[in-house]
């Protein structure tokens, strides 16, 4: 029997090709799959008990974020509005709308509405809203198109690299303090430069990417 059979060449070529394919596949799964929208859940809007629209309430009616997310300036969490907050208006307007039935039921039975998370960090990461608000980082730097969303969806990866991109160079993301809650703010010619704001807010990016800032 010969050492090399008639198909030896074919086996060899197949082996070579599959090595290359496997290598490319590995590259793809390491570098491409993690940043694909399917994996990061970007643009994903979870099912909610009521189809609440920020576009309607924020951009349409001009409500301030703090009307509903009361603790965003003072606390780690922005907080969800109690049903009573919805009822301040919906006790008088859209009182018969079917979509608002869960709100009325929640108010009548004194049981909280249970919204589903849109933005969620792993438990081992420490995040705090109040420091970002106090240092002029606007809501839409992180919740990008919130003023324009008919259903709230995730608009960033929330990866560590995303946090670090800003923590290493926060200047382009800063705005004057009175514009933090404005969902449609744009930098204009009269806005103080990012570096000027960084000095004014005493931000020191040298220490902002230390591990202990977010993992404590």
């Amino acid at each position, binding site marked *: 029997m010969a050492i090399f059979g008639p198909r030896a060449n074919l086996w060899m070529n197949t082996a070579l090709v599959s090595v290359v394919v496997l290598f490319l596949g590995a590259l793809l799964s390491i570098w491409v799959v993690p940043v694909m929208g399917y994996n990061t859940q970007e643009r994903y809007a979870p099912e909610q008990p009521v189809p609440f629209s920020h576009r309607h309430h924020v951009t349409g009616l001009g409500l301030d974020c703090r009307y509903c997310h009361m603790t965003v300036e003072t606390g780690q969490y922005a907080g969800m509005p109690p049903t009573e*907050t919805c009822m301040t208006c919906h006790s008088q307007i859209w009182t018969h709308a079917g979509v608002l039935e869960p709100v009325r039921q929640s108010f009548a039975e004194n049981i909280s509405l249970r919204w589903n998370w849109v933005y969620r960090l792993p438990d081992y990461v420490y995040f705090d809203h109040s420091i970002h608000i106090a240092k002029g980082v606007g809501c839409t730097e992180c919740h990008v198109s919130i003023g324009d969303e008919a259903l709230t969806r995730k608009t960033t990866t929330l990866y560590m690299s995303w946090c670090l991109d800003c923590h290493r160079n926060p200047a382009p993301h800063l705005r004057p303090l009175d514009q933090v809650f404005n969902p449609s703010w744009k930098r204009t010619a009269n806005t103080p430069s990012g570096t000027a704001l960084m000095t004014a807010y005493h931000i020191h990016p040298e220490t902002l990417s230390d591990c202990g800032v977010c993992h404590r």
Partner: protein
Amino acid sequence: MRRLPIIAVAGLALAMAGCDNMANQPKRLPFQLPYGAEANWPALPPAGIVANDEPFGPPPPPPVTIALLARGQQRYDIYCSPCHNRVGDGNGMIVQRGFPRPPSYFSANLIKASNQHYYDVITHGHGVMYPYAVRVAPPDRWAIITYIRALQASENARLAEVPPAQRSLLQ
């Protein structure tokens, strides 16, 4: 040395018992249900419960300063302007969408009303207006009242009372 592989495997098994999925480190969030609680546990604390840091009775009105006025303007614009409008005439955005129209702050009744009356309206609501006690902390209530008083004073102000430097803004 036939036992070496056995010892090695046992040691490895022991070491791997220390491995743990470190991404899973449960912590409780402020608005999550307590462990084991039913979905319909009370949304409000039972009657008669007082928060441990809750002040006893309303705080006295603070002295009027520019900082208090600025705080009042900010809080007023967030919580009251949707209905009472930024200028206080009661024709805010939500009213334009069908909410009952509140009285104007410039009506004789409300100019005469005491500060305590305003404080009580914010705390307990009034007619179809819901209470704002949860959303507006007691010191902020006084700030808002100060700002409403400033709005009322500005209603009948004459140009001659404006400092000369700012007059051009109004003309």
